[in-house]
């Protein structure tokens, strides 16, 4: 089962290594990890996508909570669900008009943006759920071989009025 774990953590040197270390030392896997400071620069928000059963996810959240630098932990699916988004940046070759047209129409359908154009390439930006991102990449890959793909990893936020308190 997929678990999207959100962590509010002190924005200090070494704090992230404790989070990552916990996963490796206890044998949990990290599918994706994102981290950046929040509007309060002393705090960072971290989102980790991991796979495991219910007990494992519970143990991971408890162990994360034990870390002295960690303020809040929540499992998106343990708390009534949330939204997930991933950002992907891609570079596509544009050797001929046919391919350019096809890429542009796919981007239109997906509401993706072409953010940079050269003689030989398009650079494309797209955001969506992980499934949507997978699908977008797959569709473009059918047009021609992708030069480069950069995914941000999953970001998550709780649904409705629920939010992670500081």
């Amino acid at each position, binding site marked *: 089962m997929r678990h999207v774990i959100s962590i509010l*953590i002190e924005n200090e040197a070494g704090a992230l290594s404790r989070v990552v*270390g916990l996963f490796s030392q206890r044998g949990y896997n990290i599918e994706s990890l994102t981290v950046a400071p929040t509007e309060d620069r002393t705090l960072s928000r971290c989102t980790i996508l991991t796979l495991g059963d219910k*007990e494992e996810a519970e143990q991971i959240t408890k162990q994360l909570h034990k870390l002295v630098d960690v303020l809040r932990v929540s499992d998106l699916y343990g708390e009534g669900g949330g939204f997930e988004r991933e950002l992907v940046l891609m570079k596509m070759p544009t050797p001929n008009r046919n391919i350019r047209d096809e890429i542009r129409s796919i981007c239109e359908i997906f509401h993706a943006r072409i953010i940079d154009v050269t003689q030989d390439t398009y650079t494309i930006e797209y955001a969506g759920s992980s499934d949507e991102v997978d699908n977008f990449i797959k569709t473009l890959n059918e047009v021609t071989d992708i030069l480069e793909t950069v995914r941000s990893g999953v970001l998550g936020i709780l649904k409705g009025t629920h939010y992670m308190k500081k």
Partner: protein
Amino acid sequence: MVMLNGAQIVVRTLEDLGVTQMFGYPGATVIDIYDELYNSKQIVHHLARHEQGAVHMADGFARATGKVGCAIVTSGPGATNTVTAIATAYGDSIPLVVITGQVATSLIGSDAFQEVDTVGITRPVVKHSFLCKKPEDIQVNIQKAFYIASTGRKGPVVVDIPKNCQNPQVLVEYKENLDIKMRSYNPTVFGHKGQVRRAVKLISEAKKPVLIYGGGVVQGEAAPELLKLAHHFKLPVTSTLMGLSGFPGTDPQNLGMVGMHGTYEANEAMHNSDLVVAIAVRFDDRVTNNAKKFCPNAKLIHVDVDPASISKCVHADLPIVGDCKAVLKQLNEAVEEANLEPNPQIDAWWDEINTYRAKNSLAYQKSQDKIMPQQVIEAVYKATQGQAIVTTDVGQHQMFTAQFYKFDTPRQFITSGGLGTMGFGFPAACGAKVAFPDRDVICFTGDGSFQMNMQELSTCKQYHIPVKIFILDNHTLGMVRQWQSLFYHQRYSQTDLTFNPDFEKLADAFGHKALKVSDPAKLDEVVQQALSMKDDLVIVDVLVDTDAKVFPMQKVGGSMADMILKEEDA
């Protein structure tokens, strides 16, 4: 405003935190701190002969007193040498602050002389760690370190201080009455009231309850509250290795130790119970045996300060997160409020338990010409009237001590349970003796374990630390040999220790006393003689039967009740 340099701040902060004893080893990156320690009238520093020994001493001091143990070492190898000892404290949740020197901040990352990433290397085995980036960080980090080490689930904290932060020329403000706040660290103290009420109701209704407790009761000073609850409900009580001394060993309700080498009655009672009341235990595999077969008919009430320990290995039906002393108090109050009495069927349960006890599972065969290791523990127990502080190393002698020395008062028993560190016992005994110079401090060790940290004999000479070391000398690595004998067709691969040093000469070389005994008839006399030499460190080399084995023993992969009681059944 008090202006001090970084090194002065280290010492001043430690003094204000009440530190009186430290253990350590100097070097280039802590030389400024040592220069300040030279001035301290409050802190007595003990120079160990190896950094591992220093930290084990601080650990032994902490276990014996309940205070935070404090050690200081230099960067690089000084820091890496402490790793095993830090992990030992972590394994048993012992409050410890280890100050490590670090190369100057300008050199960090340059592979400088005696540089290692101390915070990185120790990260998996500390509760928390700090790297001071500037002199202003030192006071607040040390104060936080002591607070974190000694609250919630206790544990070791490392404070890494680069050399330039200790610079005698750079003065910063020392803040008296500095209040430390950590928004991200607030350990739970009190248990959930509803859960507490439900718990006492379950206990009063249980027909076959068992109370199992662990090291948290000792570290959390919860022994009186535990005793009250156990006595009120006439609960059979068993302890993990780390819990020993938390409930009187001579109490009639005590079933002895549980688990791998626990008593028959303790393991059978657990397995056949209908309610397990678990206080500050973490259900390690040496306790549960196969966790899937754990107590099949029992509900589990689990009290622990660490939420991550609950439902980690076995599922808790009624979890209570909180400090065990506070929660036990709440439980006792809830019992009084609701006027609860034990289930009358508890007497029938005790009848059943007494049939388990009748097996006399710790019985062993004595011999005319060989000393059995169990006898040594019994002899010392008798001679010290059960009052000594006892430390052990790891192996057969450790299990025999747990089985045969009945500890009646908390903090009397000091052992490395979680990590199982050979070489722990002797330096830990030094730390305990430094804390309690007037008490008998005994270290039971093996000929294998003792050789892992015997360099500290010099420290004992220098600071006059007259501990008594009983080497249960079987010329082999006994526990491994036991397994080789029972499960590996007597193929004794690399467990032979025939080429031990002459321990009497060794003691002599370090300026200590030694006694040697191999005749069972002389054992009591030699024990008495050793104990009577109050002012001397005495090594007692006791030659014991090489083939003695620790029983009972749980069968690997079985339930708690699957036990081997004697060699023929293995």
